[in-house]
Each structure stands twice: as C-alpha cells, then as structure tokens.
C-alpha cells in the first residue's frame, strides 16, 4: 500500500512564498480580491505562518508552511454529513466537490484551520482564464476545498508508470509546492516505502508533527533543529 506523505524542513524555509503562488496556479484556486481578503476570505491551500521571536531590533522570524496535514485520523471526516470528505486508500483526505453542500462543519473541526471555502462562485477574468489547469476542476460557490497533495499529479504519475509497465518510483511525483521551492525544503513521496526520501526525512531526529498531541496522525512531517517545535503563541 501507499501512504502519500510530505516532509518540510523548516530550517531550509526562507518564507519566500513561491510554494503559495505555485499552489494557486496549479490548483485553479480563485483569487478573491483585496476586499474579500481583508474579511478573512483569502483562499490559500498552503500558507506561510510567520512567528516572531525576541524584541526589536533583535527579532528573529520563523516561517512555517501550513497546509492540509492529510491526517490519518482526520477530525474533518466524521463530521461531514454527506461524505464529501473521506479518507482514500492512499492516505489522502479527499474532497468530493460535487457532494459538498457547504455546512462548513469540517472546517470548524480542523485543528490546523487549513480548509478554505468558496464564498462566491469563482471568477477568472481574462487572461487568468487561459492559464487554468485543465486537470483540476474549478469549484463552484458554496463548496469547501483544501490541499489535495496535487492529486492530479499523483494520478498522472501513476498513469505514466502504468504505461511504461513499471512501479511509481520515488521522486516521480512532485507536488507544485515542492517543485517551486528554491531551497528544496519540501519533499514528497510514499511514507510506506522505507527507502523513499520522505520516509528518511520523517525518521530524522529533527522530525515532529504539528499539534502532535492531538494524535491526528498527520501525513505531513516537519523538521526543525531548534528547540522551537511548536508555533509560538
């Protein structure tokens, strides 16, 4: 079996937000505009959280990319009344957009607050419409969405391997955020495969889970060498 997972090395992250832009472009995430963003409706599947330490002028900023943790025991799943979000056999918390009726219960029960909602129908004014990714559906208004681990890329990687009559090799499938990271802080692969890069990163002594004491068994592992293991309050 496969369990897709991601490891993020916080010591390499510079907070440049290239991953955020790549994610939006890859996944047809709507841009809501200044006014809506001010109301707290910016739709980022992946965000860079910034935490500051120390007093000015000796301030240090820490960055943490936060995305759907693809939990093994996901709090969002049991509360959905219509099975619009469920756990697929490869360890993804999948979203079925056509099934979602917009109760937003899943988002309330997500301890990482990573789910985003389409408050209005998506608009892609020209020329944005010409750069929509044909492999990803555009979500209608009233529907919840979140990071999919670029499920369309996973599918494409599996298709390609099947055509070449081989197994998917480690590194075949790269998520948009991983691909765009200039410091190679993100790696992606199969956590069940002990030889994959992501498995090796996950076994690092620097590895930890975000809000680990909730035991949601995330598919995302963070690495940090500092004593700072949890985001500051």
């Amino acid at each position, binding site marked *: 079996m496969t369990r897709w997972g991601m490891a993020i090395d916080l010591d390499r992250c510079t907070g440049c937000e290239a991953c955020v832009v790549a994610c939006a472009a890859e996944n047809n995430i709507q841009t809501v505009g200044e006014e809506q963003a001010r109301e707290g409706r910016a739709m980022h599947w992946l965000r860079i959280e910034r935490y500051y330490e120390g007093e000015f002028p000796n301030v240090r900023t820490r960055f943490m990319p936060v995305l759907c943790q693809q939990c093994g025991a996901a709090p969002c799943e049991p*509360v959905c009344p219509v099975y619009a979000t469920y756990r697929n056999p490869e360890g993804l918390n999948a979203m079925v957009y056509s099934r979602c009726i917009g*109760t937003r219960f899943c988002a309330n029960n997500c301890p990482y607050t990573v789910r985003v909602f*389409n*408050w209005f129908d998506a608009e892609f004014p020209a020329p944005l419409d010409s750069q929509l990714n044909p492999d990803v559906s555009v979500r209608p*208004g009233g529907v919840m969405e979140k990071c999919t681990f670029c499920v369309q890329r996973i599918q494409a990687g599996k298709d390609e391997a099947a055509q070449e009559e081989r197994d998917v090799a480690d590194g075949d499938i790269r998520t948009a955020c991983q691909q765009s990271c200039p410091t190679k802080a993100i790696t992606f692969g199969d956590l069940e495969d002990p030889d994959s890069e992501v498995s090796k990163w996950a076994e690092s002594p620097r590895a930890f889970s975000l809000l680990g004491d909730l035991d949601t068994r995330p598919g995302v592992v963070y690495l940090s060498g500092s004593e700072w293991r949890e985001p500051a309050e």
Partner: protein
Amino acid sequence: MTAESQPSAAALDGQLLGRLDRRRPGLLVGSLASGALALVFIYCWGYQIANGIGVTGINRPVFWGFYIINFVFWIGISHAGTLISAILRVTKAEWRRPVTRSAEAITLFALAIGGLFPLIHLGRVAIFYYMIPYPNSRMLWPNFRSPLVWDIAAITTYIIGSALYLFLPLIPDAAVMRDRAAAGLRKRFYAVLALGWRGTAQQWHSLEWGIRILAVVIIPVAVSVHTIVSWDFAMTQTPGWKSTIFGPYFVVGAIFSGIAVLMIAMALLRRGLALERFLTDRVFNNLGLLFVTMSLVWGYFTFAEHLTVWYSGDLFEKNVHHVLLHGDFAVPFWTMVVVNLVIPVAVLSFARGRRPLPTALVGCGVLVGMWLERFLIVVPALSTPRLAYSIGDYMPSWVELGIMIGAVGVFACLYFTFTQLLPIVSVWEMREGWRHGGSDEAGGATSDAAATSGTAAAPVPGGGGA
C-alpha cells in the same frame, strides 16, 4: 370555589371563543407588522441564494455565525411548549390548563423557524437533501457519524411529534368552532381540523389516551433534540466546544429560554385577549417559581463549565476562556450573566416579582441573555483557533441581521394567525377543570392545595348544562 364563580359552559365558550368571531384591530396591526417583517426574511434569504453565501459576514476561521446562533436559539425557544406543557400534563398540574395550548403553538412555530436556519446556513441549499437518507441510483447514504445527520433525525421527529401534540387537544375545540361557524369556508376549515369529532365517549377515551401517550413520549424527544444540538459543538475537538457538560447545559438553557418566551406570550395574551380570568396571577406565580429555578440551574451549569475549563490549564482552552471573560467578548459575557442570573433571581425571588409585568420583562432579558449565550458559544471558540496565525474576527452583514429580525416576524405572523383562527386557551380542558370540581377557579387559584389535600371539595358545580 363557590358556585357563583363557576360560569356555565355556554358562558365559557362565549368568553374564550367569542373573541375569535370579532376582528380585533390590535391583532390586525400586529399581523400586518409581522407580515412585513416576514417579507424582509424572504427577501434577504432570496438575496443570499441569488448571490452566494458570501453576502454574510462569516469567514475563515469563523465559519459559523448568526445562522447557527439563531438555529440554537429558536430550537431552545421551542422547548417552551411541548416540554413544559408535557411535564405539566404528566404531573397533572391543574394550573396548566390555560397555558398548554399557547405553549404548544410556540413550540411548533419556533421549531419550524429553527429548522430553517441550518438550511439558510448551507453553502448550497439547493442540494440540502443530500443529508437525508433517500434511495438513489448511486447507492449513496448520508454519513451517520455526523452530528448534523443526527440533528435532522431529531428535529424531524420533534416537529412531527409537537405538531401532533398541538393538534390532538385541538380536535374538540375545532369541533366547537365548526358547530359555531356559519356555513362557508370557515366552517369547512374547522370541519377538516375536527376530523369528524362528535364527542362520543369512545372518542373522548381515545383522545385522552392519545394525549397521555404523546405527553410522555414527547419529553425524551425534546430532551434529545437539544442534547443533539449541543453535540454539533461538543463532538468536535475545538477548544471551547469540546465539553461533556454541553448536553444537559443546552437542555437547561433551552427550557430556560422556553419559559422566558412563554412568560412574555402569556402576559401579552392576557392583556391582548382579556384573559385575566383564565391566566390568573396564580399561574404567573407558579411559572415564575419554575423560571427562577431554571435560572439558578443555568447559573450552576455555567459556573461548572467555566471553572473546569479554567482549572484545566489547557493552553488552547484557556485562550478561548480568556477572550470570553476578560477579552473581546467580556461585555456580552457579563451582560449575559446579569440578565440570565442576577436579575431573574433578584426579581423572581419575591412574590411581587412573579406578577405578569415583571415576569414578562425578566423574560425579555433572559431571551437576550440566552441569545448572547449561543453567540458566546459559537463565535469566540471559532475566532480563537489553535494556530495563532489564523485568529479572526466576525461581524454579521445586513443579510444576516435581516434574516434574524425577519424570522421574528415570521414567528409572530404564524402566531397571530393561529390566535385569530383557533382558541389559544383550550376550551374543553378548561371545562374539564371545572367539572373536576371545586379545585379550580379559572384554572386553579387553589388547585394544588386542593389536589393534594384531596378533600377540598366544594361540591360539584352548579353552573348550567355542563
């Protein structure tokens, strides 16, 4: 009581039913005003459906807002009736007789409105039926692990049960109305409602058994409904929501706000329909005692909830607790404590405070307080998520306010229509009270004492023709 205080059946009918034959200008004005508010409700909901749920003020992280608050609030109000009237019926409290009908009507209408709010709240209301288990070609079922699906089952059961519970005791009165009405549309309407009631011994027997069974069955249903509403919150792992006390806490709060609205409705009906003879000071005194008891129980639950959260020292729980007690939400929080606990206890502890006007005013305060309680459950917990980066804020939009105020209009509209069409005090139950002899003066000045002492016993009424 003495024989001369016992009106004849005809006089009683005249007093309780006669007003239905006349047009009362006050009620007409009320109906029109509430009708206008109901139009606001319809407009705002239509506007939201046409433009998208984004016309509200909800956002990330406050995904639930006024709609859910009002949902819990109205479901709470619905406990006015069925539960209270059922408890009073089961315990055979004589002073229930003038109260039950108005309470049961509140239940049904409040429930209808409360049940609408989760639908108004949906992102895609057109496909709300995905939550209902219906046979379909894709063999898809709703997720029975979700408290929202439990909600649907509970509320549907409750709405059917409370409609029956309102309707059954209404049958003999509808028959009286049918017999009094001149031939025409009105008569046909009452004839349908009366279900061919002839008042035979067999019919009375069936009716009484039906009511008796429903009164017992509806109590656990009512308790379960508000418990399940609380589980929409308590089943999550969200700090501020995850709490084992929420089930009973919500039930107590619901009964508390239910009594509040009942006190207001009764004071208004007493004045508006000149029912002083039936809704006596005694009735207000008894309900007032129940009211202050619920206030104290509510206060105890609130204290227990907040003490355990504070004592736990859990970081995320304490963040929520802090904004509630000392932070952004301190003003509504302490207002809630004053209107829900301090004022009711201060006023209702004294017999003079348990008269119609003061109890109704306390009731208004409690309605505000219980609305605030639901606000303080929904918003602070969501706006204070675990990851500090996502801390947010919430301000309702005009659409949410319009729907909230409009819903009051819809409720009043339904209620006014009901009081215009049907007797808001159960005529046959009042008559039965007199027939039981001695123990009742207009629904019970001395009822309890008489019932317990058993002897009391002014001999059977003389009043004509009962």
